[in-house]
């Protein structure tokens, strides 16, 4: 090989290394013409494998999550239940006996809640508290009227009604009445209402307009009458309490004097009949006490002094007289005369008896 050929080969080799030359271009044409490439399914498999390798692994819950969630749920439920049952009002509301609908609320055809008019009757004194718009005004007589209502209503009236059903009288204080709003809304919350009801707001309960036919003077008179009734009831209660205390005191006194009376009776029995002056206070006292004690023993009643019983009975008669309980007073007078036939009735009692026996 000549020097020229060697130089030519070296130039070709350098061009080949540099990416030029006929062989390089021929090879590039060849691979382009033959279009040699990997099967597409192999490419897809490779790409899928590559994606799966870097995909975040599915999150696995730690093993303690389920029991922890269960325990937390139980704890919360128990605490809520305990809280509910520790509050009496809530317990009453949650009890199955509680009515689902307040008695004054009925479902109308349109599915709206309406209040029946009979349940929304407004008492006359309450009308004074409401202005024409039905809003609440500050009523200074409110506490006193509530006390009057308590006296009027029997003490055994169930308190449940006030917690569950709205009181018609309370409605008279207008739409802002707390009992109306709270009880009605709480009942709303517990109702399995149809869709029409739950979608539509409850109809506003409005106070009835005051009746013009009732004069204002009669309102005032009724109030005064109620007030006097209240005062009378209070006096009666105090008098009854004083009489009971007096009875108790006399009974105690009789129990203390019992042995002394028995001793006096024994002495009287052993002594000659005229040993003691008959007109003396001591003798009469002894005789009277002895008689009273013996009669008390015979009747089985607790032993008490006859004088105390006379006074107590007279006090009872006077109480009944002053309380205006005529029948009771007359019956007590009869009992007194039957019990103490020797005793004279006081003049005031005699006058009372005379006046009312004639009636």
């Amino acid at each position, binding site marked *: 090989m000549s020097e020229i050929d060697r130089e030519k*080969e070296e130039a*070709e*080799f350098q061009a*080949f*290394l540099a*990416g030029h030359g*006929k*062989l*390089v271009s*021929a*090879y*590039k*044409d*060849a*691979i382009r*013409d*033959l279009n*040699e*490439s*990997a*099967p597409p399914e*192999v*490419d897809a*498999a*490779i*790409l899928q*494998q*590559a*994606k799966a*390798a*870097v*995909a*975040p692994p599915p999150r696995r819950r730690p093993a303690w999550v389920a029991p922890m969630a269960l325990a937390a749920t139980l704890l919360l439920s128990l605490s809520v239940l305990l809280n509910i049952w520790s509050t009496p009002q809530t317990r009453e509301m949650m009890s199955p006996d509680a009515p689902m609908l307040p008695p004054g609320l009925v479902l109308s055809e349109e599915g709206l809640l309406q209040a029946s008019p009979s349940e929304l009757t407004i008492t006359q004194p309450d009308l004074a508290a409401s202005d024409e718009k039905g809003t609440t005004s500050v009523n200074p007589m409110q506490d006193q009227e509530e006390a009057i209502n308590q006296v009027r209503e029997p003490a055994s009236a169930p308190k449940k009604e006030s917690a569950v059903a709205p009181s018609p009288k309370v409605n008279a204080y207008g739409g802002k009445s707390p009992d109306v709003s709270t009880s009605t809304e709480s009942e709303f919350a517990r109702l399995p209402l149809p869709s029409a009801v739950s979608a539509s707001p409850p109809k506003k309960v409005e106070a009835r307009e005051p009746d013009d036919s009732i004069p204002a003077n009669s309102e005032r008179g009724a109030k005064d009458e109620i007030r006097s009734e209240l005062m009378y009831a209070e006096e009666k209660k105090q008098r009854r309490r004083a009489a009971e205390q007096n009875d108790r005191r006399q009974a105690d006194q009789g129990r203390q004097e019992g042995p002394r009376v028995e001793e006096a009776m024994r002495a009287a029995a052993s002594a000659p009949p005229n040993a003691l002056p008959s007109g003396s206070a001591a003798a009469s006292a002894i005789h009277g006490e002895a008689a009273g004690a013996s009669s008390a023993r015979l009747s089985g009643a607790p032993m008490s002094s006859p004088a105390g019983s006379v006074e107590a009975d007279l006090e009872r008669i006077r109480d009944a007289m002053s309380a205006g309980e005529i029948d009771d007073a007359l019956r007590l007078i009869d009992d007194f005369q039957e019990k103490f036939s020797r005793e004279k009735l006081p003049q005031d009692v005699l006058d009372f008896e005379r006046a009312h026996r004639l009636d």
Partner: protein
Amino acid sequence: MPDLENRNDITDEQLMRRYQRGDAAAFETLFRRHRDPVFRYFLRGCSDRERAADLYQDVWASVVRVRETWQPRARFTTWLYRLAHNRLVDEYRRAKIPSEPLAEDSLLSAAASEQPEAQLSRQQRARRLIQAVQALPEEQREAFVLQQESGMSLEQIGEATGVGRETVKSRLRYALNKLRQELADVRD
């Protein structure tokens, strides 16, 4: 991700870094850049399309598998073709693929059957060139294919195949001379 694929300023190493951080689109870009040259590397090496496809899939699976331990100490291409070279050598040992060049008779007979050269179609000339490449000895063929397909420098080819730069250069010189001789009737 088409944006990534069209951006040539992102190097292979950056894409591999992204894939390490969980960006599957980066791997896809990287894969599309190198899939055909790698496949042709195996195709020239084992002359069997199915086996080449298997080897090709194995190499890419290795890339996916060892992505977390990959460190950019060398170019990604060098690392990739080192994997491919090792896989191909393993395959030679396992299946006893003849690493010897194809018999010159077959090449010559093919060339003779396609007389005259001027009438050879473009496709036939391409096939003839590929056959000539595949007929090269294993080391020369590998050096030639790597130089043509991967665009690596002599040093990088030597790094991928485990030999020195001058060895690669020598192999390439022999390969070029042989091809020149084989394709003398086809050229021009």
